[in-house]
């Protein structure tokens, strides 16, 4: 009879899940295609219809901030729900449940979604800034907001995807659950981006940074506390 073995560590399992997610994505490009194509299509549409010249200078920061986060938000909604849904639909969830610690699965998938949404952000934001003539007065604040906002979007989307993965109407349920969960940080991110576009003083945006840090912390902590029950039941 084999000797007793300890449960796998969270970090090695998370790294393995993260690597597998990216390798699978590299080979199939399902989420990447939907994320990038959606983001690029919306960006081109917005740039063509609105562009840098059709907005009055005083409206530009607000409208551009809203449009930028709309692109990122709907990209997250389009591509990130797949992470757990695909495991259930493909029948691989049982193998993963028996093999990996739940927190390792969540962390690996969260990191993979952060990487995917981060790549979309890195691709879209410079294009958006150029095509829309979006002037940023405080680039460090803007970059920090993008980091925090992207992480929050990825974290909430990943956990919501886990919640709905066993439901029958997954797509509709994902939107119904994710939109109210994501609205508060989105409002904060939009207002903060407007501040970054209009004021060069970093301290003007620190309240919004605190809000986003708090949101990311609460959502991620809640996800790790609740995931075990969601994943194994």
């Amino acid at each position, binding site marked *: 009879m084999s000797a007793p073995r300890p449960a796998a560590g969270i970090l090695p399992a998370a790294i393995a899940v993260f690597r*597998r997610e990216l390798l699978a994505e590299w080979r199939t490009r399902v989420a990447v295609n939907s994320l990038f194509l959606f983001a690029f299509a919306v960006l081109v549409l917005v740039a063509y219809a609105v562009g840098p010249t059709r907005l009055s200078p005083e409206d530009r920061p607000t409208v551009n901030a809203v449009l930028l986060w709309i692109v990122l938000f709907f990209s997250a909604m389009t591509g990130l729900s797949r992470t757990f849904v695909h495991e259930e639909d493909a029948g691989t969830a049982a193998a993963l449940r028996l093999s990996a610690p739940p927190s390792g699965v969540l962390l690996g998938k969260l990191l993979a979604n952060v990487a995917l949404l981060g790549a979309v952000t890195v691709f879209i934001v410079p294009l958006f800034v150029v095509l829309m003539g979006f002037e940023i007065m405080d680039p460090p604040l803007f970059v920090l907001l993008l980091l925090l906002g992207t992480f929050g979007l990825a974290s909430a989307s990943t956990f919501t995807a886990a919640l709905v993965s066993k439901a029958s109407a997954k797509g509709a349920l994902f939107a119904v659950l994710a939109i109210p969960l994501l609205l508060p940080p989105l409002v904060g991110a939009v207002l903060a981006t407007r501040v970054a576009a209009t004021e060069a003083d970093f301290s003007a945006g620190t309240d919004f940074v605190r809000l986003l840090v708090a949101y990311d912390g609460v959502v991620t902590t809640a996800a790790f506390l609740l995931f075990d029950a969601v994943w194994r039941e």
Partner: protein
Amino acid sequence: MRLVAENLSRSFGRRAFGPVSFSVEAGRVLGVAGENGSGKTTLLKTLAGLIRPSGGRARIFFEGEDAGDGCEPRDVPWRIGWAAPDLALYGELTAEENMIFFERVRGLVPTPGRARALLEGVGLPPDSHSKKPLSSLSTGQRQRVKLAFATLHEPDLLFLDEPGANLDEAGRSIVQKVVAEQRLRGITVIASNDPRDLALADERVTLS
């Protein structure tokens, strides 16, 4: 080691199986028989901890490791091996990459030749698993990969649902070999309608 089911049952609105009671000792093979829809797969999933029972309980007793009350299967997933028709591995990875991935998430240190040796042990030569994605293999070849997956971590309890499904005669002899090896390690539970699978069992539970 001992696997004990006490009045175990599961319902999904209507009764899926049970209540059933049995006890299996290490080195033994339990066969679960029954008609289609009698709840064989659900019983195996309940015993493996993949779903909770509606009534009764399943306990695993490890000698010298528990306080006499045993533990629930869902609390010791690293000691359980599982292969079933509705189990799927990652189709976009090769069979070898699948083995290495599951070694890593189980906390085992992947050694270069181990996954390959395991796959060769279930009759898959390197050219069938080192380059092609799993999704391009035949159903029978994928069933062999599932057997390798189930025994990858040398589990104490091995649950095989329809293990001979889609396998040719050579594949069936691999099932026999897997079960014989598991006898040395612990307990095997086989659910099947096929008399050739059930012939491997020492004792039998029939669901109605």
